[in-house]
């Protein structure tokens, strides 16, 4: 088996049980008494409605999951699609939402233990009084935090067994209950208002399915199994909830459930009435169910922490793996601490509704993220599962998720809103200066800044990450020069502590629809994935962070300029010669219109093998040759290159004076200085015989014009045997220090 197969060892059943196991513990074993008391027979409708709302988002989560089977699930998709501002909101909401949910499960766990051992009331500690149910909950929370902290791997498999037992117990309840059910027993419905309010209350029963996406990277054949597990688990639990609720209401006389005390558990009392041992089975079932829900939630929250830490939304220190246990112990310990605090501070209803509010915010964002990924037409976005009835499904999914929040207790909404505001402020004041990755939405808005209203563009810009993020873009076309371009680009990116962005531009004929091309990429370019994968490997070898992108365009060469703008490149390193980017004819026609405004610094490489051991920099002054000197400096620092500076002057003494000063000013005081008189072209050719690499700035004319016109430099380049770098600075940039930094 390949490593890939070994790393992905969650089969379809295991994936399904993560969803079912996380969901089934919560609602059905804790909330029906309240639900039936409040909504009467409409409690069944509330549970079904909750399932339907969850199902819309389940479709979206499935599509996003198959396109991006990455650790961190919902947070990752939102961060990728909508950018780190919303990513921060989704990440925090998911993390805290899971902690609130776990606290809720643990109070439920406490109630079950309480029923088994028969303690009631509170523990009095002087002036403080803590209900026993909470004390047991605290112990339970500490226990499951500990289990995850030391990472006993048996617990995971136990989860599968627990889910199977639960399904059997609930099936027995349904079947035995049906024999005693009587439609006349159904309580009266109390109306739509209480029904929606009850839906808000019980929605905590539908929070589990998104957790499947947080372990998506471990699922076998995620393209097939992920949607089945996500959608399947929502459908299964909805059906189970509905049947259990109907039986519960119909098997006992009206008023029986409403008369139960808060410490009694409705499903257990009804079970006892139907068939005494069934009550005992349900008692144990509830214990297992609440425990497995909490256990799964604590585990899922550590995955979200990891993904947030990787993007620097929170400190990556959280992600440290324990030396012995191999667990993300810090993140688990913090989540455990939060759960303990939440159990102490809040009551059951607050815990459950607050976690619902936070999850509903994520669900809405997930649906919007899907729409953005589709509309922005990202070539890398290739989900193998697609939502039915797009765009209807995600739009309705987002609306109903937000609408359900409206029916939750306003005080709880206020607390939830407080957390969302906190997450936004957290991004602006903590994470914005640290995270580097902008979202698809931001790129999309930037690339259309001319067409969109200024307000939208500046709003998007105001939440863009502003960490030191020097970007070197490397357009790749020719696999033969790819490695050399990555080497040079990598050295520049590394010098600035920035990132490489490898962009593969696939040119398709004008008459071909771009959407068609996107779906049939192979017909136009056999090896998109190959070139980018090789770039990724090479960048890893040089230890430079890299992101890869594919751009499909009718234009070849001009697309480089657009891509440089879209990706906010600070420097573009590209190849030239042979068939690097479209035909020469295309370049020429393209030149005039684009050359007037270079969006960033350009370095064009005529590749004859990348050997930076002896670098020659001819100069006559000017910003472009300063850039060529900066390149030489970076190569010297990275590869210990010997640098020679060449100046051709009319007067040798004046020339030497100029070059001395220039070398000093450009941070190359150690360079060998060579001053010649006479023909410039011949001098460069002579000097270049000893060099392995020539770094030369474009002067008055645009750099790229030199590629197509018969200017002086052009002839030199063709005659030489060494690799040539042509440099040209951004036209609209006066602050050159921002580009090539302090020396």
């Amino acid at each position, binding site marked *: 088996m390949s490593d890939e197969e070994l790393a*992905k060892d969650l089969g379809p059943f*295991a994936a399904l049980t993560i969803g079912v196991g996380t969901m089934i513990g919560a609602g059905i074993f804790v909330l029906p008494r309240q639900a039936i008391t409040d909504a009467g027979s409409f409690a069944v409708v509330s549970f079904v409605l909750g399932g339907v709302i969850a199902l819309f988002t389940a479709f979206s989560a499935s599509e996003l999951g198959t396109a991006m089977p990455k650790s*961190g699930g919902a947070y990752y998709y939102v961060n990728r699609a909508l950018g780190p501002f919303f990513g921060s909101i989704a990440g925090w909401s998911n993390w805290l939402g899971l902690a609130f949910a776990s606290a809720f499960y643990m109070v439920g766990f406490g109630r079950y233990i309480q029923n088994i051992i028969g303690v009631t009331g509170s523990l009095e500690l002087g002036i403080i009084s803590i209900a026993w149910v909470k004390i047991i909950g605290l112990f339970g929370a500490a226990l499951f935090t500990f289990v995850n902290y030391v990472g006993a*791997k048996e617990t*995971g498999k136990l989860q599968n067994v627990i889910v199977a037992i639960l399904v059997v117990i609930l099936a027995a309840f349904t079947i035995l209950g049906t024999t005693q059910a009587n439609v006349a027993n159904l309580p009266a419905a109390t109306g739509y208002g209480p029904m929606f309010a009850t839906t808000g209350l019980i929605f905590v029963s539908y929070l589990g399915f998104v957790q499947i996406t947080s372990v998506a*990277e*471990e699922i076998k054949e995620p393209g097939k199994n992920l949607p089945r597990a996500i959608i399947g688990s929502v459908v299964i639990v909805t059906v189970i909830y509905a049947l259990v609720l109907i039986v519960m209401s119909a098997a006992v006389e009206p008023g029986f459930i409403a008369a139960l005390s808060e410490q009694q558990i409705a499903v257990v009392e009804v079970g006892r009435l139907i068939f005494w041992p069934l009550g005992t089975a349900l008692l144990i079932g509830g214990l297992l169910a609440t425990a497995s829900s909490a256990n799964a939630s604590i585990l899922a929250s550590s995955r979200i922490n990891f993904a947030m830490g*990787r993007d620097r939304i929170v400190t990556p220190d959280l992600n440290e793996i324990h030396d*012995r246990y191999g667990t993300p112990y810090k993140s688990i310990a913090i989540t455990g601490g939060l759960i303990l605090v939440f159990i102490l501070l809040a009551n059951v209803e607050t815990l459950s509704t607050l976690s619902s509010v936070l999850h509903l915010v994520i669900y809405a964002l997930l649906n919007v993220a899907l729409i953005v990924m589709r509309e922005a037409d990202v070539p890398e976005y290739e989900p193998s599962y697609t939502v039915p009835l797009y765009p209807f499904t995600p739009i309705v999914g987002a609306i109903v998720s937000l609408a359900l929040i409206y029916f939750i207790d306003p005080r709880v909404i206020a607390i939830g809103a407080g957390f969302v505001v906190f997450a936004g402020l957290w991004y602006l004041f903590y994470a914005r200066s640290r995270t580097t990755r902008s979202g698809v939405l931001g790129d999309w808005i930037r690339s259309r800044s001319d067409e969109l209203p200024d307000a939208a563009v500046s709003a998007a810009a105001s939440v863009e990450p502003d960490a030191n993020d020097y970007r070197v873009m490397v357009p790749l076309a020719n696999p033969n020069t790819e490695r050399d371009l990555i080497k040079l680009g990598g050295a520049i990116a590394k010098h600035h502590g920035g990132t490489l962005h490898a962009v593969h531009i696939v040119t398709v004929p004008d008459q071909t629809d771009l959407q068609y091309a996107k779906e049939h990429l192979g017909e136009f370019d056999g090896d998109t994935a190959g070139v980018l994968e090789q770039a990724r490997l090479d960048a890893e070898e040089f230890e430079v962070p890299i992101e890869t992108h594919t751009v499909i365009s009718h234009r070849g060469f001009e697309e480089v300029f657009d891509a440089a703008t879209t990706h906010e490149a600070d420097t573009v390193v590209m190849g030239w010669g042979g068939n690097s980017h479209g035909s020469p004819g295309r370049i020429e026609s393209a030149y005039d219109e684009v050359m007037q405004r270079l969006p960033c610094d350009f370095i064009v490489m005529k590749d004859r093998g990348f050997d930076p051991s002896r670098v020659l920099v001819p100069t006559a002054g000017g910003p472009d040759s300063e850039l060529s000197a900066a390149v030489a400096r970076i190569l010297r620092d990275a590869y210990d290159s010997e640098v020679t500076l060449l100046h051709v002057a009319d007067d040798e003494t004046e020339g030497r004076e100029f070059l001395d000063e220039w070398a000093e000013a450009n941070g190359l005081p150690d360079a060998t200085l060579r001053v010649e008189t006479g023909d410039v072209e011949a001098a460069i050719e002579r000097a270049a015989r000893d060099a392995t690499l020539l770094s030369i700035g474009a002067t008055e004319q645009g750099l790229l014009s030199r590629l197509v016109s018969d200017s002086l430099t052009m002839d030199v380049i063709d005659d030489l045997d060494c690799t040539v770098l042509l440099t040209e600075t951004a036209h609209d940039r006066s602050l050159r220090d921002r580009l090539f930094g302090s020396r």
Partner: protein
Amino acid sequence: MAKGQFGHVLVPVASDADAESTAEALADHLDADRVTVVHVVEKAGGAPDKAGVEQREEAAAEAFERFEEAYGESVETDIVYDTDVADGLLTAAAEVGADALAFTPRGGGWFERLLSGSVTRQLLDETDRPVVVLPGGDQ
């Protein structure tokens, strides 16, 4: 003291701290022409892992880096996925054709052994090639 000599040595590392002490001990006590450093990602085998695979891979990359720093030269590296750490190591040793396994024992109290068994013990019991136990571990 003369150093032990092997052609190709397989060296398991569990964490970055372990990588560092193992690399130092290896440099002090063995002459190897070729070193392959291996990290085993322990899989739950059909249930969610205790930490995500991407997270474990990042931790492995860090451990490899620390190893090379401490060892002073670059080495081959490999990440292995297995439900059992010792089995994963022995399979990896067979695959790369290692002449010997070398590691620093990681000790651990009764509690860790209860949880995951002793990898050291298991390696010694099940190995099909020479095993070199290096000093400088936790105990």
